[in-house]
């Protein structure tokens, strides 16, 4: 469903001229109000009035997560605190979190983009949205909540945790839409199965899943186990929160990024050079309507590519290919770039293996080692030793074929691998210790 038909289907030419106008306005504003940006532009020898085309954006320096930390907490805000109505922060695993502030208009735009995103996923009035994203400093819960209300759907503010109760509410309230992380949706399916509850028979129709990288094979598993359509949604608190980009239900391939509010660029993460459309690299986003904390050429660390071909849903906004990992998550093992998602795709290609795995990276005698721990479920368990050893050998061989690195495959008992109720912890890197 098109929530905002005019803007979602704006012809490319009009969309791009709107982008330029909004970009110029944003650059002028941050130059005037945020000392960090003024200094960064001056250091790069540029001023907002030199930006005459969208391509000129390349003259502006990048903004990094570290810049947000250096300006903690409010240093990058472009409006006085009197105009801020909401503050969120990221769950910084190290050091200070990154802080974002929203004006009333920012909240309205965010709600509109989330409502558009729900619409793209085929959700509308009459739907009951079971929102299991965390409510709090994390943007997921409130972001989805405001969008759901804007849309006119009924939203159940579940937040995370207490999974048995989640299943009871979902069943009793007749939820039709589930919003949470992909790993949590699988966790819910698992908890339901343990209680002999047939989650497949629930009225659930659509899952809007995000906040962590996931793969096509996990989508298949979620769709099968919960009997829903699983839609990938993308967002990050530095830029907005959930609702920056989403797949349309028509294609379920590539996430439309709302280009009347964001400019997406793909760069080579090593050199910073902008790559031609269609090439894979790091996603860089510039916000062009945000008031509270505009972000100029923010390096997301997410690896993707832009799909420029028109989409049959009719939206003119270009699509981001499913994130294939984060440049932060990228492991360099004996000089080879390894994304956890690549290991996952190997596991999922083997009949019976579930995507419950963990990678342990270590260093022995100055050589990197990789151990892939795979949970043994009933589907692959055998009373004889040989088939299990053959399975481990096969995984090892296929990883070697795909990535060119040798690893150790260790079969482990189910649930040995820490499965938090939020994001799954896939990698333990002991090399820095």
């Amino acid at each position: 469903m098109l929530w905002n038909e005019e803007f979602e289907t704006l012809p490319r030419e009009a969309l791009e001229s709107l982008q330029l106008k909004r970009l110029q306005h944003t650059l002028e504003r941050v130059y005037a109000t945020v000392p960090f940006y003024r200094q960064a532009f001056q250091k790069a020898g540029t001023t907002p009035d030199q930006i005459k085309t969208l391509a000129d954006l390349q003259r502006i320096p990048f903004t990094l997560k570290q810049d947000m930390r250096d300006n903690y907490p409010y240093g990058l805000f472009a409006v006085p605190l009197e105009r801020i109505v909401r503050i969120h922060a990221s769950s910084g695993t190290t050091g200070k979190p990154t802080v974002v502030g929203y004006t009333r208009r920012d909240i309205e735009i965010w709600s509109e983009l989330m409502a558009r995103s729900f619409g793209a996923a085929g959700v509308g009035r009459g739907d009951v949205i079971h929102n299991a994203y965390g409510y709090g400093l994390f943007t997921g819960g409130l972001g989805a909540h405001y969008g759901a209300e804007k849309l006119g759907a009924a939203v159940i503010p579940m937040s995370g945790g207490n999974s048995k109760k989640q299943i009871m509410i979902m069943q009793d309230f007749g939820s039709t839409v589930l919003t949470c992380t992909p790993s949590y949706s699988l966790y819910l399916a698992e908890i339901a199965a343990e209680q002999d509850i047939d989650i497949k028979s629930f009225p659930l129709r659509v899952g809007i899943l995000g906040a962590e990288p996931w793969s096509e094979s996990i989508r298949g598993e979620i769709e099968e186990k919960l009997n829903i359509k699983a839609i990938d949604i993308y967002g990050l608190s530095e830029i907005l929160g959930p609702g920056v980009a989403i797949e349309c239900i028509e294609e379920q391939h590539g996430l439309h990024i709302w280009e009347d509010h964001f400019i997406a660029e793909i760069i080579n993460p090593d050199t910073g050079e902008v790559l031609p459309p269609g090439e894979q690299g790091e996603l860089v986003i510039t916000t062009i309507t945000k008031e509270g904390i505009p972000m100029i050429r923010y390096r997301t660390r997410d690896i993707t590519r832009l799909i420029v071909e028109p989409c049959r849903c009719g939206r003119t906004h270009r699509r981001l290919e499913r994130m294939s990992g984060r440049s932060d998550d990228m492991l360099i093992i004996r000089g080879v770039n390894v994304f956890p998602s690549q290991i996952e795709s190997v596991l999922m290609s083997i009949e019976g293996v579930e995507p419950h795995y963990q990678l342990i990276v270590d260093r022995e005698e100055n050589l990197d080692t990789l151990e892939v721990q795979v949970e043994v479920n009933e589907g692959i368990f055998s009373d004889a030793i040989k088939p299990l050893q053959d399975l481990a050998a096969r995984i090892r061989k296929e990883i070697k074929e795909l990535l060119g690195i040798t690893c150790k495959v260790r079969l482990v008992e189910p649930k040995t691998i820490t499965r938090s109720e939020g994001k799954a912890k896939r990698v333990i890197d002991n090399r820095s210790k």
Partner: protein
Amino acid sequence: MKVQQISIFIENIPGRLAEATKVLGDAGVNIRALSLADTSDFGVLRLIVDKNDLAKQVLAEHDFTVSKTDVVAVEVPDRPAGLADILQELDAAGITVEYLYAFVERLGDNAVIIFRFDNVDGAVKTLRDKGIKILPGESVYNL
């Protein structure tokens, strides 16, 4: 004429082996025979117990990965080459033995040995044709 065997995946051998047997003991399940096959990383514990369904249920509740397999319990005469003769008969019939292990308890003077075959039905037929005594499940679970 088949006997049900329960197999358990054991990752950390010393601790989990004790845990698995304790879980069964606490539930009042008696272990009749067992064998542990292990590698440097993991092991498979195979058990013949008196209450199969209860055993599988309590093990699953404690997050063990469990499977059930059909095996054959054979009464082996207490004389030199008692086992060797049986193995020879099976070999001659082209039946492969995946593994075998003995019962703790004896049946009179004779030993009871659990056989895991790749082809259970073929093996049962061969053993019968050769007049070798196979024990039914019920008598084995409560031996």
